[in-house]
């Protein structure tokens, strides 16, 4: 059932994102063309500069809209589809509440990642010229060499760990939004205000917990370690442990937000 829910989730949001992505690519190509024309000729300078300015503005505006929409659709799909009138259908499907949350979370994560990739791709489209592939390859190999030089074999492990970490942070943040909306909907008369309040509350609590752990960790660690740099150079396993610790903490937060959302939607649903 999760697969089916995910399919409909993508179907519902694709009709908003696909046109946005298409126009982003289109404007990246237009920008690329203007840059080439302006570089190669001196004719009609002012007119072409204005045209390029307009298309650059449109392009930047599109990037901003894509990220605003990514956030907006994330919130709107959860609120409208589950807690609005559509919730009467969704919550009477023979599906576990957890599957609803998971389908929405996976779809949101997918759109955030796709939005980032599309934006990077559009930047490359603008920068594209005859020498592009050669210099792109060169840049990548330079980065890899540099990582290898500083971190050694561990460098690749860091890249993988960092990617996993980014995904976890993303999931945790989305679940935090879901948990806030769920808490907010329990306050019948002020759902929106309640959601904002809950978000602030969750934020403060998580910052508080993280600070405490950092202080404890630092005071415990400072007795043994002289500096972070020292550890990095002398002991290659400790950074991985630190990373694992941070990820574990993230996982605890994610699990907490998921549980709050699941409990509220299962037991304290308050459809109008």
């Amino acid at each position, binding site marked *: 059932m999760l697969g089916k829910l995910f399919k409909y989730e993508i179907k519902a949001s694709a*009709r908003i994102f696909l046109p946005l992505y298409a126009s982003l690519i289109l404007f990246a190509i237009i920008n690329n063309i203007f840059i080439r024309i302006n570089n190669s000729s001196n004719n009609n300078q002012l007119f072409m500069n204005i045209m390029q300015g307009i298309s650059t503005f449109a392009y930047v505006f599109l990037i901003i809209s894509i990220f605003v929409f990514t956030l907006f659709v994330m919130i709107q799909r959860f609120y409208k589809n589950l807690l609005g009138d559509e919730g*009467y259908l969704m919550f009477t499907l023979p599906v576990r509440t957890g599957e609803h949350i998971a389908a929405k979370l996976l779809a949101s994560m997918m759109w955030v990642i796709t939005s980032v990739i599309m934006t990077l791709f559009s930047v490359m489209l603008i920068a594209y010229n005859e020498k592009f592939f050669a210099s792109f390859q060169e840049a990548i190999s330079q980065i890899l060499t540099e990582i290898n030089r500083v971190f050694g074999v561990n460098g690749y492990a860091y890249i993988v760990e960092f990617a996993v970490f980014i995904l976890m942070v993303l999931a945790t943040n989305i679940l935090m939004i879901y948990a806030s909306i769920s808490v907010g909907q329990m306050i019948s008369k002020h759902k929106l205000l309640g959601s904002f309040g809950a978000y602030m509350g969750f934020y403060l609590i998580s910052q508080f917990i993280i600070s405490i752990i950092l202080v404890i960790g630092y005071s415990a660690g400072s007795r043994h370690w002289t500096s972070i740099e020292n550890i990095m150079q002398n002991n290659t396993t400790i950074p991985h442990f630190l990373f694992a610790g941070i990820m574990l903490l993230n996982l605890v937060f994610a699990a907490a937000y998921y549980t709050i959302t699941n409990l509220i939607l299962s037991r304290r649903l308050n459809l109008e």
Partner: protein
Amino acid sequence: MNPILECRALTKKYGNTQALSDVNLTIERGRIIGLLGPNGSGKTTLIKLANGLLTPTGGEILIDGKHPGIETKKIVSYLPERTYLNNWMCVREVIDFFKDFYSNFNPEKTYEMLKRLAINPDDKLKTLSKGTKEKVQLILVMSREADIYLLDEPIGGVDPAARDYILNTIISNYNENAAVIISTHLIADIEAVLDDVVFLANGTIALAEPVDKIREEQGKSIDGLFREVFKC
């Protein structure tokens, strides 16, 4: 066989408001039951509890002997009193949605009924009138071969001609193993199809009896009795 729906000392409170108090009720299969009562008497609350959209404050509600959950949702076909269909799909896509999630959904029935009511399956829901949307919803709900149909105000928003067709649809689309609960205050319109009536007043059951018995013993129509019981 378990009764299809059973309430045991069922109680629901919203804050300090008592929506249902100590309701005991057993609904058997093969009956069409009218759930009648004035506004705010707890009809919708009872139906929402049966669907698992609300959790009881006290007591319990059982569908085919089970608490509301995935298993009961498979056999309960529910028509809420509001439009729960999204706007961006066309009717055909919604039919596919139902087919995907409900194994007892019969799309042939749906297309046949849509044809009878001259609704085009390729129309976007956005373009349909409120009444037409309600018809589509009812058709979808009645196209499931469910064990119990919970219909909350199924005829409120549609014209009298469609009302007759819909009631006909309801009677002809359930089998002897299924029960149909219709909540409404338009009693005169549905009186003819009912087997039993349940009167709800202020969250308690005022009366739960077969229609024939009421007519025999009281010599009144259900509509007449309702007006008497709930006289303002």
